[in-house]
């Protein structure tokens, strides 16, 4: 069961179809839908390759796998222009404060994908003398991708799950005691 299965039906909104764009030339929709739809389809990932997962992340950017199909091909080298931090590799104790700082420098809204076993839990280096056992000890993580390293297809599935999560965003203020959804 993926994240997309957990979205309640009332939140699943269909895309406007091309044939609906003729006269009358007006679309009515909700702010929730239009903003989340736009955000989820132009995610700018931050180039945060730390180890061998970075090779898979980079290869998914090129023509053979082509992350551009999901509108995520613009890898930015600066946190100021990124929405998504793909932590691809082992985070060590020396890197953790730097990672935190770069995360803090990213503009809201921002998301974090933990790619591979190392970023998720420390992986094969779990007992390492200088390894952080999971990037979620440092920054909040939205999607975890298993694998060592995950293939680009696995990364894409994770990114699609992230898109689903972004689409769930609601601008309405949450009332105390209200059900999450």
């Amino acid at each position, binding site marked *: 069961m993926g994240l997309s299965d957990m979205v309640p039906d009332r939140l699943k909104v269909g895309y406007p179809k091309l044939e609906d764009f003729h006269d009358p030339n007006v679309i009515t929709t909700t702010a929730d839908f239009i903003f989340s739809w736009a955000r989820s389809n132009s995610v700018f990932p931050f180039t945060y390759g730390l180890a061998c997962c970075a090779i898979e992340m980079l290869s998914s950017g090129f023509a053979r796998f082509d992350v551009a199909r999901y509108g995520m091909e613009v890898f930015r080298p600066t946190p100021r222009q990124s929405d998504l931090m793909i932590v691809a590799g082992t985070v060590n*104790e*020396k890197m953790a404060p730097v990672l935190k700082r770069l995360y803090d420098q990213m503009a809201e809204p921002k998301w974090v994908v933990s790619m591979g076993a190392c970023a998720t839990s420390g992986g094969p280096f779990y*007992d390492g*003398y*200088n390894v*952080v056992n999971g990037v979620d*000890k*440092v920054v909040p993580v939205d999607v975890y991708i298993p694998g060592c390293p995950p293939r680009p297809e696995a990364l894409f599935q994770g990114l699609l799950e992230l898109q689903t999560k972004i689409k769930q965003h609601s601008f309405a203020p949450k009332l105390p005691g209200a059900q999450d959804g």
Partner: protein
Amino acid sequence: MTLEIGTVTLGIDKIAEQLSGAFAGELDDVRVQEPDTVVARLERTKLKDVARRLKELPELAYETLNWIAGVDLGSQLESVYHVYSWHTNTYLELHVAVPRAKAELDTVTDVWPAADWHERESWDMVGIRYLGHPDLRRILLKDDFVGHPLRKDYVDLAENHPHA
């Protein structure tokens, strides 16, 4: 000045012979390990002097330091120097034993400047203190790391895991 690699063709056995002749009483256990590598042992007090003379040998001239490795053998530590001679296109591997209780050794940065970062790494990982090094800091681990993790008796400390 152009440098032609391997212009001096002596043969590795001849080189080993020359070395044990020129450094009699200093290099012990001189032997040919591979077709292009001579291995020798050296006492740590003689390291700096021998290093300088190795670099200035007329024909062999070990001018290039490839790497330094810090090793923990359990009973003692060891610092291994891997040097290269352009003229003969051969290597020399120097094993210098360092006692565990007093892990100190002279630096060779003034002979081979390339030793700088390698000695820092060896200090960082194995904890061999290179006396006379211009800037002996940790190079791989963070500055406030406690202990030297590649020592056999290193125990993982909670203070080295602030993000656990």
